[in-house]
């Protein structure tokens, strides 16, 4: 009996030695879970799934995308928060989680508990109109829209997914002073069918959501919330050339809980960076126009970017009187 116990002890020591030895070079020993707080088939989900497959091939361990939906992302974030920070659970996040955090909708301080590690895509928002309705109103450009809205206050309806989110923010800044009628929708497909049917006049959203109907001519782009025009709609004006200070677009990034082993984080960042050049990923980001914006490099540049995003959102929410949780270091 003693011999067996001694053998077991020796084995355990050996195993623990192995873990210590491999501390500098992190090696994933089982599958990784990436929590996606938004539904199957949605924008966030369809971004992380192809990347997860690529990371899986790169790292050689299964990478599982787990959708924990609800509460504008709060459910998923809370789920990731409750998992141990052992390097096997990561969170897919967007700035919506910052917003929910500052609205005090989370049971923990998201900003303190999670770090943004690597941004996958930074998409570009746009304002587009239903072809049917634009023809009726005689609107071809953003300035036409301004004139029409001034003459017919609140008549032009604008669909958007979250009035309090990023879409709402970039729209609010760009159309300041215009009497438009923003209507909230709960899914991109509902927006698209109402645009195509002419039940709503305009919509704010990502190019990825609208590309199909833009190509078919059912909706026409009016304004791109970007620093430059984009290749796919070269004729459409961008906010920068009109002198509008509104560039916010949703970005999707991998977050890690505080305390996650740095080795695991580095490995994930390395995998994402390596997979960016993969042909399938390149094709994917091209099809959704994600290639039109350069994402900040992991490390200091990314940290500075996140802080500035936080500050912008904080100021906007303060103005809207929805800021409930104020982080002192943002001021």
């Amino acid at each position, binding site marked *: 009996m003693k011999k067996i116990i001694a053998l077991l002890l020796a084995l355990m020591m050996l195993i623990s030695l192995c873990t210590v030895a491999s501390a500098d070079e992190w090696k994933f020993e*089982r*599958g990784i879970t990436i929590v996606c707080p938004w539904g199957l088939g949605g924008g966030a989900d369809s971004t992380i799934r192809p990347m997860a497959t690529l990371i899986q091939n790169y790292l050689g361990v299964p990478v*599982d995308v*787990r959708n*924990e939906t609800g509460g504008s992302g709060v459910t998923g974030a809370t789920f990731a928060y*409750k998992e*141990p920070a052992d390097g096997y659970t990561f969170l897919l996040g967007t700035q919506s989680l910052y917003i929910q955090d500052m*609205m005090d909708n989370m049971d923990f301080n998201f900003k303190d508990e999670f770090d943004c590690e690597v941004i996958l895509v930074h998409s570009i928002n746009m304002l587009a109109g239903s072809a049917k309705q634009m023809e009726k109103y005689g609107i071809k450009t953003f300035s036409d829209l301004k004139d029409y809205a001034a003459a017919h206050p*609140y008549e032009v309806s604008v669909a958007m997914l979250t*009035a*309090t989110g990023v879409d*709402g923010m970039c729209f*609010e800044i760009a159309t300041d002073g215009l009497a*438009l*009628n*923003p209507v909230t929708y709960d899914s991109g497909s509902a927006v698209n069918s109402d645009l195509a049917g002419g039940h709503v006049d305009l919509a704010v959203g990502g190019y990825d959501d609208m590309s199909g109907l833009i190509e078919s001519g059912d909706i026409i782009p009016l304004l791109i919330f970007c620093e430059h025009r984009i290749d796919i709609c070269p004729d459409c004006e961008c906010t920068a050339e009109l002198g509008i200070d509104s560039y916010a677009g949703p970005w999707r990034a991998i977050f890690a809980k505080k305390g996650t082993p740095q080795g695991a984080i580095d490995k994930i960042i390395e995998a994402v960076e390596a997979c960016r050049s993969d042909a399938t990923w390149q094709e994917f980001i091209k099809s959704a126009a994600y290639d039109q914006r350069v994402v900040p490099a992991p490390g200091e540049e990314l940290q500075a970017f996140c802080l500035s995003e936080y500050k912008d959102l904080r100021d906007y929410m303060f*103005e*809207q*009187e*929805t800021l*409930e949780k104020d982080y002192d270091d943002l001021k």
Partner: protein
Amino acid sequence: MFELICNVFLFVFLGYTYFTHVLEAKVPKSYLKNPNVLHPSVWPKAIIILLLICIAINIVKIIKKNKGNPDFTFKAFGKNSLEFLKSRMFIGMVVLVVASFILEPLGFVVTAALLMFAYGMLLGEKKWWRLAIVACVLAVLLHIAFSGLLGVSLPRGTVPFLRSFSLFLENLF
């Protein structure tokens, strides 16, 4: 009597909710700037008002219906309640509530085995050892099948060794 008490309770609770908990946060300024919007409190408030009216009518109906009914007293209600507290159904409810509380810390495997065992005993299985074996085996099998093979997430538990056990099961295949 129970029906009456429930209805009165519901009435009072809804009344309280109407005045205190319909809106739990501030409505964004940009939303209210537009005069065409429907205020977020309108829909729930309308439903509560309709409910209050219907429940009030229902309360009157119940009282009318039970006029002269000898069992329609607080005393009879007290007696029935005591009986209910001793019933198997009440124990079943307690078992379920306990299970929902231990699910997160202990994880699916342990909770499922305990729940199956407790409820099986409650339903009258006499061979407790057979039930115990079946419960443990089934809990493990269900976890492997759903979490390991089908990728349906199940709670792994927060107690470290139970968590490692769940992970071990999930990675068997």
